[in-house]
């Protein structure tokens, strides 16, 4: 029996302030196999993004265990988590999160800055990633000079430049019109089918969710399917 790429066991996430305790996730169990393309759907506030952030090691669960490729990562150090994010995971955010002071090429190079990769090799990899998303002609532009769809393609190039095994996309088409959204989806599908990248995507859009292999539904912090 193969080890799942991502495994969540009885994961709970509680946000506590002085007065309020908010349960964002409760008793979530989930296995995602290598090469799967999974979408996570549910109403606003149901815990979809929280789940994605936990999978992406951007946040820690209050309870439960998260394993990547069979290894538990819940208690890993900051340095170890940073290394895992750098080597294994790529992120695509709804609001792109490109650094406005850097050119498209410099933005795409960011994940490689935290690896022992020489400048020439970084540049070459970033150029290849931009070519992969069809933005070679814009590599010396700044994010503010690009349309929303182009910015999201830059964000995808940045996410894949380090060839991660897992790509996490948080409503990647949420800020785009339907045509641009379809373009982005076809890039993601392409990555999944051709490069066997494991993809987990949070979306509100059933039309985009239908293009994934499996849909996980969330409600009130729990899985409902």
């Amino acid at each position, binding site marked *: 029996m193969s080890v799942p790429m991502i495994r969540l066991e009885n994961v709970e996430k509680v946000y506590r302030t002085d007065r309020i305790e908010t349960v964002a996730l409760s008793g979530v169990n989930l296995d995602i196999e290598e090469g799967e393309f999974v979408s996570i759907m549910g109403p606003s506030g149901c815990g979809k993004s929280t789940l994605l952030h936990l999978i992406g090691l951007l946040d820690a669960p209050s309870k439960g265990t998260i394993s990547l490729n069979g290894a538990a990562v819940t208690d890993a150090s900051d340095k170890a988590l*940073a*290394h895992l994010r750098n080597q294994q995971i*790529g992120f695509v955010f709804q609001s792109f999160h490109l650094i406005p002071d*850097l050119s498209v090429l410099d933005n795409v190079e*960011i*994940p490689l800055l*935290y690896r022992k990769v020489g400048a020439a090799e970084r540049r070459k990899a970033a150029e290849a990633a931009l070519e992969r998303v069809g933005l070679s002609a814009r590599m010396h532009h700044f994010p503010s000079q690009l349309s929303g769809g182009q910015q999201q393609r830059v964000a995808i190039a940045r996410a894949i430049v380090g060839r991660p095994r897992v790509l996490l996309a948080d409503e990647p088409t949420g800020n785009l019109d339907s045509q641009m959204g379809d373009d982005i989806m076809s890039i993601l599908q392409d990555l999944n089918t051709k490069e066997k990248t494991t993809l987990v995507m949070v979306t509100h859009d059933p039309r985009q969710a239908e293009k994934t292999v499996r849909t996980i539904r969330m409600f009130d912090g729990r899985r409902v399917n």
Partner: protein
Amino acid sequence: MLKNYLKLSLKILGRRKFFTFVSLFGIGFTLLVLTLSAAMLDHIFAPYAPETRADRTLTVFSVRLQSADSWSTGPAGYGLYDRYMRDLPGVERMTISSMPATVVSYWKGARIEALLRRTDADYFRILDFNFLEGAPYGQADVDESRFVAVINETTRRKYFGASPALGQMIEADGQSFKVVGVVPDVPIFRLLSMGDIYVPVTTAKSDDYKNKIRGGFIGLFLLKDKGLADSVRQEFKARLTKVELPQQFNKIYAVPESFFGSFARMFINDFEADEPGDRLMAIFLTIAALFMILPAVNLVNLNVSRALERSSEIGVRRAFGASARDLLLQFLFENVIISVVGGILALMAAGAVLAVLNRSDLIPYAHFALNLRIVAWGFLFALTFGVISGVWPAWRLSRLKPINALAGGSR
């Protein structure tokens, strides 16, 4: 990585112009004051001509006479050196010179004020004066109390204008001297060598000075080798025990040391401290650090207030593999860069201020200059300032949780 940080730092400086201006103004002004202070101290203590042999010269700036219930501190007397400190082992040459005293002369109806220093002949052998005209007076001049004088350029100009000076007579302190040499002006702060008129010590109006243990003279000892300083100090100390003290005193303290050390001993007024120079340097550096703290706190506040603006970037970098340490280094590096830019501006401004000071008569004979040593101090101040003002904000920014940083992003 550093290239990337540098590129980003410069872009951020260019993009946030008001922030950059406020930061650079604060940093630049602070560093300007510190650089000017360093230039002043360099001007006073660095081994410039005629004090070119400072590395193997020891001096005694002041002595302390102690009784059971009182003490007297100040320059030693001629008698202390002449009667007790001649022929110290390891000393190639010793000179005794008076502290410069202001004397007034009237020359062709004009009132001329000058600093008169009375010296022996070895004074000009230990100090490396570059004679513009003539030569120093010699041992015979001193032994025979000849009324001869070496004057500096400014005094020469005051007395003689463009006419020849050598062989001419000048009046100082009610005495007439024949000019035998002209030397460059020595800045007023260089207490060992400055003076307008130098004359043989034996031309003093009375011989009272010869036996005094305390009062008005500086001793300079040129060592055969700079490694002999400790042994000379020990012998000096041993000889002090043989000094016949004035009646009311029972102990004498004095230590031959570098000019800076001697000045430091006088400043901290501790005649038994081992390394007064180190203590004075620590005091100077503490003052410099305290002076940096207020603008540093200001910059810390500015930096922290930028956190929200840059939280998206922090979140992205964390998401793509930056550890807290990576971010700490990045933000610290950025702060050091802006501080170094401030330091460069401060050095340029300091150059201009020093040029104005040199041209003004505010400090007599000043010739301040930005040499490599001061530039190095300027950069050290800039780096220190960058680290002091950068560590806390960098630490705070680097400790932001990735998810919180992304959530706080402006985009």
